[in-house]
């Protein structure tokens, strides 16, 4: 059982982490060169106009005033309005739009990764040094090594251009108005809720390539970790005992071994998923899925401070939350960890 105390302790630890991240982001942004007022005002602006912008946004206040304001706002999850990317729209609103995009991609990618990676890893461990094992390991190595900016366009070329089976980019056919049926922001779910089957099919077809690209990479990592962890567990005394007691190898592996072998695998899944929530920038770029990662990169490029601060903090928050989830899962798998 998980004690509330354990969870509370973990949650409290979030506070210093987030304050640290917030301060770091703030300092990096304000130490880096570039005047945001000038960027907002643009090349056509006179000096006077730039100063006017600076003043209206409080960018001419002393740095510690800006810092205090930022911390106070951040505590309420307010980051002000976007300077450039979505002019005069609150960062909260921008994030609310973009987070589901990233979440959906991460979920499907990870789903593919887990559902292929774990069975392959187990298979590989059980049949150690067999042809299956070698093939799986080569596959996994390739999955990790092939860069997405190469495999992505290649997949587009094959499935969209040559075979014409799947669309090249986006989340759903642009002919469909998904905004009007928005509930969760996840298009595959929203289209189902609305009962729009054509739209659902379109959303799924658009998801296949990007989710697979992420999934293959995840699968590779997960299966490698599963294999080595399982191999280690198989050699444990209790496994030998179980076999000696006459239990079949399938049952020993799945019942006694699986649970214990999962601990390092859960770590990998947690870190990966946390990372994916920060945006799979390359995949998003190649498939033109504007998620939170692309947003952050754009915001850094153009100097949209509020968006950068809001996005990084949200990412840090989600990442630590996922890690909390991982910790809780540990303690379910192995109650000793909680002590």
């Amino acid at each position, binding site marked *: 059982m998980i004690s509330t105390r354990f969870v509370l302790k973990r949650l409290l630890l979030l506070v210093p982490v987030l304050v640290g991240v917030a301060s770091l982001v703030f300092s990096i942004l304000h130490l880096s*060169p*570039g*005047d*945001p007022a*000038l*960027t907002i*005002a643009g*090349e*056509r*602006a*006179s*000096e006077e106009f730039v100063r006017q*912008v600076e*003043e*209206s*946004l409080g960018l001419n206040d002393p740095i510690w005033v800006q810092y205090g304001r930022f911390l106070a706002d951040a505590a309420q999850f307010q980051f002000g309005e976007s300077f450039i*990317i*979505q*002019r*005069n*729209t609150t960062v909260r609103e921008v994030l609310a*739009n973009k987070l*589901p*995009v990233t979440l959906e991609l991460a979920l499907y990618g990870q789903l593919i990764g887990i559902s292929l990676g774990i069975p392959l890893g187990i298979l590989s461990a059980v049949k150690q040094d067999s042809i299956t094992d070698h093939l799986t390991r080569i596959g996994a190595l390739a999955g990790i090594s092939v860069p997405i900016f190469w495999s992505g*366009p290649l997949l587009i*070329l094959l499935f*969209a*251009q040559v075979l*014409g089976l799947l*669309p*090249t*980019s*986006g989340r759903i*056919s*642009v*002919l*469909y*108005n*998904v*905004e*009007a*049926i*928005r*509930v969760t*922001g996840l298009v595959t779910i929203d289209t*189902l*809720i*609305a*009962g*729009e*089957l*054509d*739209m*659902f*099919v379109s959303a799924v077809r658009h998801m296949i390539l990007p989710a697979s690209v992420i999934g293959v990479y995840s699968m590779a990592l997960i299966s490698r970790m599963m294999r080595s962890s399982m191999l280690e567990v198989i050699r444990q005394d209790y496994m030998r005992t179980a076999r000696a007691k006459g239990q079949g190898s399938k049952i020993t592996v799945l019942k006694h071994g699986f649970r214990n072998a999962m601990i390092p695998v859960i770590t990998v899944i947690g870190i990966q998923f946390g990372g994916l929530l920060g945006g799979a920038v390359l995949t998003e*770029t*190649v*498939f*033109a899925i*504007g998620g939170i990662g692309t947003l952050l990169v754009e915001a850094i490029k153009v100097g949209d401070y509020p968006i950068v601060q809001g996005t990084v903090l949200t990412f840090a928050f989600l990442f630590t939350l996922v890690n909390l989830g991982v910790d809780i899962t540990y303690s379910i798998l192995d109650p000793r960890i909680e002590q």
Partner: protein
Amino acid sequence: MSQDGNSLSRRRFLSAAGTATATAALAGCTGGNGDETTTEETTDGGETTTEDDSGGNGDSPSVLRYGRGSHSPTLDFQNSTSGEVAKVTEQLYDTLINFEPGKSTLTQGLATEYTLEGTTASITLREGVMFHNGEEFTAQDFVATYRRFVDSDYENYAGDDYVSAYGPFTLGSWIDEIQVDGDYSMTIELTQTYAPFLRNLAMFAAAVHSQAAIEEYGTELSSNPVGTGPFQLSNLDDANELIRLEANSDYWGDGPNVDEVVFVTIGQNSTRAQSLASGELDITDGLGAQSSVQVENASNAELVRTEGINIGYMAFNMASVEEFRDRRVRQAISHAINTEAIVNEIYSGFATQASQPLPPNVLGHNDDLDPYPYDPDEAQRLLEEAGYGDGFSFELATFQNPRGYNPSPIQTAETVRSNLGDIGIEVEINQQSFGPFLEYTAQGRHDACFLGWYTDNADPDNFMYVLLHPQVEEGELTDGQDWVSFDAEGYNTSNRSGWANSEYMDLVEQGQSAYDEAERESLYNEANQIAHDEAPWVYLDYADELRGVSNRVSGFQIAAISGPYLNLVSLN
């Protein structure tokens, strides 16, 4: 909006519950059921339109899909200087005066007559034009729009943190007073004689909001546009970076010939080109050299190109580098840099070599001028004559990301370094991202820098005065010296050279206030001759405008200024 969406989806969910979801998920892929559902939903759903994925068959609406690299940060032309905003607002809004599609000449817009004499512009407005909200367009709308943009005393002023720099740049700095004579006539009094004024009225930033909408929405106009244009907003989807427009059947002008337009954002050029080739887009812009070749090779689309109204250059900062104050040094460097190779090899021929500040197709471009030929020997001779035969060194500041007029800044800088190395000049490249780069160079901290300019209004003044005139008071200038410090009071930092050539300044000042076209042409011809000979910049290139257009599109007119004219486009 989202509340509507919620109630809609609940209703739909209930109607689809039971048999639909699970069983139809298996059967639905065949399509028959789906079509039926679509028709039903559309009639009771009202605002939701769903179409067949194929996009162009008989009874489904015709949808034009326009691909581009970035989403619009706003739908209000007063809220941003971004070209991505202009592309969409040009469809939603009208200006008093228009550019003729594909040309840089002016034609009627919401104004049917317009004259500029002295400091007075007289404008007669078109009658019977309706805004998308059903209000009739009158002179009061223009006044409210103008005041919302520049007048901080106006109750509906959009705010210092909202309005874009085009407020003063296009209108505010030049307009003294607007007098309305009835609903369809007005007189604009200018602060000085200013020849480009009518062209400024044709810029996207000078479009007209509805006064009723200004009062109703305030700064929320950025997502609730109400214009008189050929299309009106049907849906802004920031999550998926899509903007959906529907035809305005009451449009006063030509077209529109399609039922809907969707602006689609695909950041990566190659993916966008592939989407065009696979039939998922009808028109795309923002193509680089590589993706242009992709489009050229596509069987179902073609690459359309025209000469752009822009310039890419390298500015010598005479205020900070003593060597650059000698004309012979600037000329030597102009001869030493192989701009022909830069344009043909690095920019893959999607640009032409520049010879002067003003690009072709703009009044006053001097056809007699040729680009400086690549001639290292002549360069060496000029350097020696100037007393710098042993060379010297300077820092070249450049931005890192491609810009239209300089698609490969780093490679271009490397070429400059290597070319100048041949004549003994040592170049150190200082590369920065665009924001910090602009700040660095606007403060005059560079020795030399790359930069460029896309026209706002296709007027010679927009290049010659804006980019090479120091715009300081007489007292700040020193007699017999053709440069001025960046610290001078009121200095125009868009002039990244610190150049202050009095003869040139006289000519462009006269050009700014002369209204006779022939006179202006000769003034700017002469000013260009001076700028060519004095070489405050190394003139690099005029970049082409490139668009990928699907074969199913007809009537598309590529334009170097304003547009895209999607009201003229139809789908086969």
